[in-house]
């Protein structure tokens, strides 16, 4: 499965294997792991919620876009949902390519696009509350400021 949305622990080795070929010289893997802190607050755990049908569809669209743009054939994306403990892997993007340059470019773009367009939401749970995170690339948008203000 080149696209996966799952409540199970992600297995980066298995996902990386999917994109290895004898014709390829490069495999780039991104692991997104959950951090134990946000602006000095200790994060206890995270909850990922997805609009499942649309998330899978959009992940496949991102995958097809990347393959077309960078001339790639091996792109695998797995996103975990549900409760994810600290230090665990929430996202794996693995790109196999003949040469590394397009692999690095495609991997970076994949992560950017995933954070922009996939309907998945992350909630950080603290000792004294929780917060729906907005995309880190829009960290100071009015929506996120409002999101923070309303978190409970």
């Amino acid at each position, binding site marked *: 499965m080149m696209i996966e949305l799952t409540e199970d622990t992600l297995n980066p080795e298995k996902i990386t294997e999917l994109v290895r070929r004898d014709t390829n010289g490069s495999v780039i893997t991104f692991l997104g792991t959950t951090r134990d802190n946000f602006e000095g607050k200790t994060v206890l755990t995270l909850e990922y919620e997805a609009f499942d049908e649309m998330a899978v569809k959009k992940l496949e669209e991102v995958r097809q876009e990347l393959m077309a743009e960078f001339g790639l054939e091996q792109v695998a994306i797995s996103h975990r949902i549900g409760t994810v403990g600290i230090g665990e892997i929430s996202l794996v993007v693995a790109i196999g390519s003949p040469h590394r340059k397009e692999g690095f470019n495609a991997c970076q773009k994949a992560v950017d696009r995933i954070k922009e*367009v996939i309907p998945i939401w992350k909630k950080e749970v603290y000792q004294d509350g929780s917060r729906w995170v907005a995309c880190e690339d829009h960290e100071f948008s009015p929506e996120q400021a409002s999101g923070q203000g309303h978190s409970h």
Partner: protein
Amino acid sequence: MELNVRLFALYRERAGKNIVTVAVADGATVSDLTDEVRRQIPNLAPPEVKIVVAVNTDYADSEVVLQPGDDVCLIPPVSGG
């Protein structure tokens, strides 16, 4: 027509429910729908924030005309990864 609008994450929590049923005129657009949802749930999002809508699992511009039976979902700012 009546549409069952699905809410996720932040919007679900603010509304206190998964689904809100909204009545809009025939020929109503996405923008008409979000206006109506805002009337029903004033705390859903601040006025300066554009509410993003997915219709039938694709992002839909505010001018898109809604059809009976459309799967309409409100998409708060995403934070996957």
